[in-house]
């Protein structure tokens, strides 16, 4: 079983809708949680970062972490066609001294005009 599970999608939503993405994980030692966005044929870019539990908001993006349920979420409000991409969650423990990240498989999002 993978340490990080993520539904591959595709997730298709109309422009202006809320996009809801999530990942579940099994390793309770994970403390740092990230969301990367990857456009087609490009490298991933960091979108959001959260340490431990709680919410974090940045513009149209909100990241949530529920450590008790081992579940993280990313919400995109007022979605735009330019949000069409694959979203990967990633996480790490505080004891990994060389920055090892465990990635989910990624969810493909399509925002239709």
């Amino acid at each position: 079983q993978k340490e990080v599970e993520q539904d591959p999608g595709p997730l298709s939503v109309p422009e202006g809708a809320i996009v809801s993405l999530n990942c579940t994980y099994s390793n309770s030692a994970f403390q740092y949680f990230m969301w990367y966005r990857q456009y087609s044929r490009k490298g991933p870019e960091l979108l959001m970062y959260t340490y431990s539990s709680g919410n974090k908001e940045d513009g149209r993006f909100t990241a949530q972490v529920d450590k008790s349920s081992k579940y993280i979420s990313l919400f995109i409000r007022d979605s735009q066609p330019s949000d069409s991409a694959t979203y990967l969650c990633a996480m790490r423990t505080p004891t990994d001294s060389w920055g090892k990240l465990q990635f989910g498989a990624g969810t493909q999002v399509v925002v239709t005009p």
Partner: protein
Amino acid sequence: DAGITQSPRHKVTETGTPVTLRCHQTENHRYMYWYRQDPGHGLRLIHYSYGVKDTDKGEVSDGYSVSRSKTEDFLLTLESATSSQTSVYFCAISESGRGNSYEQYFGPGTRLTVT
């Protein structure tokens, strides 16, 4: 792409041939990583480096070797390419692997096809 280049960007090679991919950074970051990305698997770490001549294995290192003779360059070698190594390869860099430093910057990727 945060001062990271990868070469070549595309390569087609035959089974059994050696292949070397290059990652070059201009950020002077200490940590460098090689990942492969395959459908359904996400990004998987092949090898990483925590300094010049300091490297170690990731979770899918069989059939791959790496070298880092300069801070800015990290080479990935497929010793004898197999069809299972057909993939997209990404290089990433990080200023620090400790504590709150979390961000890894990714290069544009190399698309490798082994026939």
